């Protein structure tokens, strides 16, 4: 059977954790922070990679276009 009652009388009690709050919440807080960094770091890297690549593609296409115009101008 699952006992599903909240173990604390108030929110303040929950934060205080009967004197151990600072330990428990620091441990959870830093853990959440590190997990968020772990999950978002590769996503940011991928986004940066794709945007750089997009720029390169555009630059290449522009080169090709401008070459064509140059070709036209010299004739």
């Amino acid at each position, binding site marked *: 059977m699952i006992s599903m009652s*909240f173990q604390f009388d108030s929110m303040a009690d929950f934060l205080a954790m009967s004197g*151990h709050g600072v*330990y*428990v919440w*620091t*441990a959870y807080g830093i853990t959440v922070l*590190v*997990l968020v960094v772990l999950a978002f770091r590769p996503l940011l890297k991928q986004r940066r990679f794709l945007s750089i690549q*997009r720029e390169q593609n555009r630059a290449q296409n522009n080169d090709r276009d401008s070459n064509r115009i140059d070709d036209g101008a010299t004739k």
Partner: protein
Amino acid sequence: MWQSILKFIQKWFHRFGSPRWFYQTTGKWLPYLAVISVGLLVLGSIWGLGFAPQDARQGNSYRIIFIHVPISVLAMIGYYVMAAAGAVALIWKIKIANMVMVSAAPLGAALTFLALLTGSIWGKPTWGTYWVWDARITSMLILFFLYLGVIALNQAFTSRDTAYKACAILSLVGTVNIPIIYKSVDWWYTLHQPATIKLTGASSIHPDMLKPLIVMILGFYCFYALVLMLNTRTEILAREWRSSWVRGLSQ
């Protein structure tokens, strides 16, 4: 029968071995895996922090167990993941295995750091000290340095092949440390207590506390898989940028 199993593994190997196939397939899994891991971790945290009963002796400080144990388990299993990928890469020369190996290193290092940190914070109110050089904690610190070593080796060589090979060899050598960490509390006198959840035999934790712990362990397994895939996909982009399918991604 063995032949057909081997065939199946081989086929799976080759499909999974293609970076493009890996990238596209894991792309479909990611959203589900993200929802499942966040769901389990949020559920387990609320359950463990607010609804699990307190411990008779440690009071509420024991609630750190709900992150400390899953993180430590994954930090150790993650090393086997890295070393297994390294072995596969060495033997079968599969590109993706190398990428998985180097992607597992920063993830494992972060988890080992968190295992040491949460353990240290937990140690203060229970043991009366943040740190002690016992066999469990020291071998865990060695695990952290092994992960850092793989990260450093991966960046130390200009040749990709050499870097991957060096990482694989260090990963394989380091596997010796995992059973040492696991058994340290039984082999030597340590301040750290023996394992609560045992591979064989009954766990020494009340069911009301075990249930949220299992939810958290499952959540961290999913989170590990999620981040390993994300890291590997990033590595694929960085190494395969010349191929036409990667170039096609940004168009």
